[in-house]
């Protein structure tokens, strides 16, 4: 009997249990296993992160309530325990309640989402522009106002991919030329592609956007702190889709200017 009940609990509930694990495990373990969105370092990424947490809490609570009612029914209303079936077929009151309450929850979710979207799509008043072009399989960065441009490609050696050599720390997330941007500046990123559709995505800097041949998409980032941030192409673009990472160095303004000057001389 108990074993039976445990089995039911385990089956339909394993999803729920796993969800709970997300909050039950200590923070240090979370970091290693990458259970959540990575730590945001721009305003957009932070807004996305907060929104994500808000919705996740809402849906988790809804999920727990739904599962709790189902488990209660499964345990309580079973024929083997002598439960007699009721005959009711509808209840207008209940149906109105479970239509209205979700509607209200949706409105609660829609308000901050709309605000976030307005913020993300506002690319005005930018301090600088970088044009990013995806190609099969790498990225090209063009600092148009400063006359600097370069290609950026994966540097992980083939031997690490095929396994004849031990994989390095930044396996598949290292490139020859990093994109460099100054900290605290609103950088407008123009996205396009040379051949097929790619998507430029550095999770900690905010969401992704497609790079589409023949079109210019735009997004913006303003990094709050210096550091190196890594991402990947997020739109299937052919054979080496998994091998076109993005690495962005966020540096102090002075360092940025020095980097620009160096680039200009070498180019």
């Amino acid at each position, binding site marked *: 009997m108990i074993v039976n009940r445990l089995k039911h609990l385990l089956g339909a509930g394993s999803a729920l249990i796993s969800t709970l694990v997300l909050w039950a495990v200590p923070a240090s373990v979370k970091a290693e296993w990458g259970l959540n969105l990575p730590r945001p370092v721009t305003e957009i990424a932070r807004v996305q992160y907060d929104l994500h947490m808000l919705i996740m809490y809402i849906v988790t609570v809804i999920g727990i309530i739904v599962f709790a009612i189902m488990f209660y029914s499964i345990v309580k209303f079973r024929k083997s325990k002598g439960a007699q079936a009721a005959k009711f077929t509808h209840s207008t009151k209940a149906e109105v309640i479970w239509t209205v309450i979700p509607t209200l929850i949706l409105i609660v*979710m829609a308000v901050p989402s709309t605000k976030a979207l*307005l913020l993300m799509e506002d690319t005005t008043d930018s301090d600088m522009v970088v044009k990013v072009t995806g190609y099969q399989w790498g990225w090209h960065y063009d600092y148009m106002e400063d006359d600097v441009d370069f290609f950026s490609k994966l540097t992980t050696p083939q031997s690490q991919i095929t396994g004849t050599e031990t994989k390095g720390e930044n396996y598949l997330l290292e490139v020859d030329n990093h994109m460099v941007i100054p900290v605290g500046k609103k950088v407008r990123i123009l996205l396009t592609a040379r051949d097929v559709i790619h*998507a430029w995505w550095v999770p900690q800097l905010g969401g992704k956007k497609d790079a589409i041949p023949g079109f210019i998409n735009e997004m913006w980032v303003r990094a709050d702190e210096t550091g190196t941030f890594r991402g990947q192409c997020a739109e299937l673009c052919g054979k080496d889709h998994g091998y076109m990472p993005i690495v962005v160095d966020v540096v102090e303004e002075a360092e940025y200017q020095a980097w620009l000057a160096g680039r200009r001389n070498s180019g």
Partner: protein
Amino acid sequence: MTTTVADHHHDEVPKGITRWLFTTNHKDIGTLYLWFSFIMFLVGGAMALVIRAELFQPGLQVVDPHFYNQMVTVHALIMIFGAIMPGFVGFANWMIPMMIGAPDMALPRMNNWSFWLLPFATSLLILSLFVPGGGPAAGWTIYPPLSVQGGMGVDLTIFTIHILGMSSILGAINIIATIMNMRAPGMTLMKMPLFIWTWVITAFLLIAAMPVLAGAVTMLLTDRHFGTAFFDPAGGGDPVMFQHIFWFFGHPEVYILILPAFGIISQVIPTFARKPLFGYTSMVFATAGIAFLSFIVWAHHMYTVGMPLSGELFFMYSTMLIAIPTGVKIFNWMATMWRGSMTFETPMLYAIATVALFTVGGLTGLMMAITPADFQYHDTYFIVAHFHYVIFCGSVLGMFAGVYYWLPKWTGHMYDETLGKWHFWLTIIAFNVTFFPQHFLGFAGMPRRIPDYSLQFAEFNVISSIGGFVLGFSQLILLVVVLKAIRGGKKASAEVWENPEGLEWTVPSPAPYHTFATAPEVK
């Protein structure tokens, strides 16, 4: 109208291969559809195992990236167009005439044709893997310009989609014609079993959506070979237009895959709760509401293409609305179980699992509806986890519930309950082991459709691959269960279960070759 004497003559079941080639019998065609669906399920599953084998560890071990992309693409196409859609048409063929008291489908010869198109269509698709350049490798969404780059495998895929689309439309016409014209006297629309309702709505979705896909892939074909530039920016075309057209088909397609499963579990849950379905009317309207909304939410699949703000807002709000009718359905099933007298045979277990795990997929779907958050989720493993919770746990588990529920009616024998429970528990546990960690992979930033990944994703991928293999091989248990039930076992009564609702339980088990030659009366 021939006499009943002539009908008796037909009770002789034809013998040999021609029975299956030339059959116009809805039960035979239903059987063909279901076997075809199951074979495709195993073929598509084998491809999924290739994917999981490659992803077991970082690095490239099993296949090269190009073949990996082909596996990702063909796995999805086979599962969607080869396994799930034909599977539900199989249920429709077997059950619709028996549930509405009709002697057969309205258009039996067309029925034969719509089935026999399928093996040829999917053969083309599988053949494409062996032509120079390989099969389609641009994902099942075959976005240009990537799909324009592919070899003749892409053309074979386009023809596959054309033929499968024809088959689906013929099937849908047949289903609508049957349901609209051949219901037993007294069975008004609002007395139809919910499975009939969900299928008639699905059939309308098919008729509306499949031609759109056919148009999209035809434009792709002419772009590839006949010098047009619908999707080529160099010729003034627009690659994003393909995505809009594709997803205008694609989102209704999602509900084509799920609504018949909702119908099945709406039959199963009342039987095992021994209580009538709660909120029948609201179920019908919720289904129709979901179908309507499915046509105005398509761009939520492509939030990141750079739509205008107003577009993003519209699609976010319309997508969030879907939660309301879907919630109504979930709550109605729960209310059906509430204060019932439940037993937990395999069909009921599957129906409950469908409700529970589809809810998980529905809730993650709600997270993705939120456009700003979706800019992080889009094209990551979070999406992969989400749609497997929806499509596997909604459609496939719903189908399993239906198979176990009606198998005694089809074969005349009870299935092996112990094996059925093994199948259930292995499937449910392995499924969650496979796909729940993928939510975390997506959050942590693992893009989908990559054959190799950075080291931070290694642990969850090991877990996911182990689960995947258990899940895959567990499905062979279903094969054993079905074969055993066909060969023998405990005789099933006409009712099979305890006082089940519906005309299909008034005919003997196994259902005779011809049923309801004389229409029953529905009070």
